[in-house]
């Protein structure tokens, strides 16, 4: 039997804060395993070595915000066997998708001394608006254990264990008392995709919805209840219009409160 070729991994960056890539670097113990099992062929954040494609697995961080990026993602897709997006930017357009609700030219004229040099698209869009995506890993940032899980799953040809149910299930499993019921704190948990381990409720906060919509979110019912808890339309709009502002269901709910 010929020696097994190590699968080639590439990590790509689009419009993003780098937090998700850092999650991979943050997997210190696991990273040694990753490095042993796969060839890190392209990962500018971590190594200068740049091995040419094709790649077995591409992890893509960030959203598409420029014409150049819109072309670049096409090339990456062609060179990748599997393409997995990591984080809210790549999966839903990220916090920068707030621009989608306004006129981006106005922002540019405020921010840049010479706006003519800025070439940007009117909207920040998720990778799946441009190319076929094999798997989307949620989170802002992603959970590093889930990242290792997804890489392992792809290496071994199995389905990743990243349950798409609500954050509530994680609260209950860890034994956290519901902040919404026991304290009247508005919480996004019931409509938010699990994965973080219910960190915020465990620290006595309502969930911020970093992992985007869960599998069958009923945002209207939750908003109605938030109102009974005293939240204003503005509060609700802002809650749905954050890291996952451009995720379809959150977008529609925020628009309903404009």
């Amino acid at each position, binding site marked *: 039997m010929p020696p097994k070729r190590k699968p080639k991994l590439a990590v790509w960056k689009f419009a993003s804060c780098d937090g998700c890539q850092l999650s991979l670097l943050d997997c210190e113990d*696991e990273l040694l*395993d*990753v490095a*042993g*099992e796969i060839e890190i062929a392209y990962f500018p954040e971590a190594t200068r070595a740049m091995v040419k494609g094709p790649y077995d697995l591409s992890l893509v961080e960030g959203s598409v915000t420029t014409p150049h990026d819109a072309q670049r993602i096409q090339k990456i897709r062609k060179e990748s066997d599997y393409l997995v997006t990591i984080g809210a930017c790549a999966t839903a357009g990220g916090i920068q998708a707030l621009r989608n609700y306004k006129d981006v030219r106005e922002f540019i004229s405020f921010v840049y001394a010479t706006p003519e040099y800025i070439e940007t698209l009117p909207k920040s869009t998720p990778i799946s608006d441009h190319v076929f995506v094999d798997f989307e890993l949620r989170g802002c940032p992603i959970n590093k254990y889930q990242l*290792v*899980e997804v*890489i*392992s*799953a792809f*290496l*071994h040809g*199995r389905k990743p*264990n990243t*349950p*798409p*149910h*609500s954050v*509530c*299930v994680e609260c*209950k*499993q*860890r*034994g*956290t*008392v*519901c*902040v*919404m*019921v*026991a*304290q*009247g704190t508005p*919480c996004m*948990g*019931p*409509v938010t995709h699990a994965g973080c381990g219910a960190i915020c409720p465990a620290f*006595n906060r309502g969930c911020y919805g970093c992992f985007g919509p869960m*599998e*069958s*979110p*009923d945002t209207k*019912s*939750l908003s*109605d*209840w938030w109102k*009974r*808890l005293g939240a204003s339309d503005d509060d609700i709009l802002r809650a749905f219009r954050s890291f996952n502002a451009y995720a379809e269901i959150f977008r529609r709910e925020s628009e309903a409160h404009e």
Partner: protein
Amino acid sequence: MTQQFSILEREDFQKLIDVLSADGYQVIGPTLGEGAVIYDELTSIEQMPIGWTDIQEGGKYRLERRDDDALFGFNTSPQSWKRFLHPPSVRLWQAHRTDEGFELQHEPIEAPRMAFLGVRSCDLHAIAIQDKVFMNGDYLDPTYKSRREKIFVVAVNCGQAGGTCFCSSMNTGPKAEGGFDLALTEIVESRQHYFVVEVGSEKGQEVLHQLPHRPAKDSEVKAADNLLKKVSKQMGRILDTEQMQDILYRNYENARWDSVAQRCLSCANCTMVCPTCFCTTIQDVTDLSGSHAERVRRWDSCFTMDFSYIHGGSIRYSQKSRYRQWMTHKLATWFDQFGTAGCVGCGRCITWCPVGIDLTEEMAAIRESEGAAPKPGRKPASAKP
């Protein structure tokens, strides 16, 4: 034989914790945490929610001070004893790759000796229901069984009913009728504070022997009886169980399911807090190198899509089908499957539903849709948080 009751004075209550600890039990009982009365390990009576009570409504729970120093002056906890007997997550086995294939490593079953302090009658019935599920029949659950067989149960009869309680409707309380080692009724009067103790097992007798106690006077037993009679009329909710099964079987198609589906979030909280819900899922995990694998079992819920996933998709893809499945199982098909209702009337699913969905209200609405007049005394359950 007349029942023999004893009295344990409030000032001797710490000794109960001490005796159980000395017997090697990890004592688990009520304590304040995260704005609620939760169950956790106890070593001292000082950790207990002395003088606190809870106000419960659909989707709402608040702690409040009582005007006395009751130790058990509250109702059901956010989560039941289920998490101690049927833990949220259990590793079932691990496997390692070897030159010849792989080697299976069985998981040692670790069952702490636990004493549950303050189990309410509804929860005793829930434990009996889970006993049937996990320990009856051909397939025993070794995790549950090993934990279950070691527990010592100190039941507490409810001195008040909560806003979402309906054990009287389900014949599951408020008085503990069996399934305990010791059962206590707490009596708080202006100048007296004591517990009427009933022994339910030999183990219970042995523990009582190590405690300062005296035989109860008739008047004290009477005080406990009267209290429980009063409580059984205080229920915050009522569930009319007459022909409940038939009504549900006749109403798989009913507009009420559409209305509840408009409100239900499919968040699964109701099933997680329910003391009888037992469903789990299996996760197989491998590490990066592929040389190590493990299988983990964790709580699942009929409200998730994966729960009814078969090749091609989820069978219960709508919120309506998922809520209907859950409620019909609790109140109807459970009888066919296990011989009792799957609901003990603890009210947790009502209190801890983030949007206050109430199965007693849903059941009443379906009943009324058939033309039945609303029962007098049924509280309109529309809750305000």
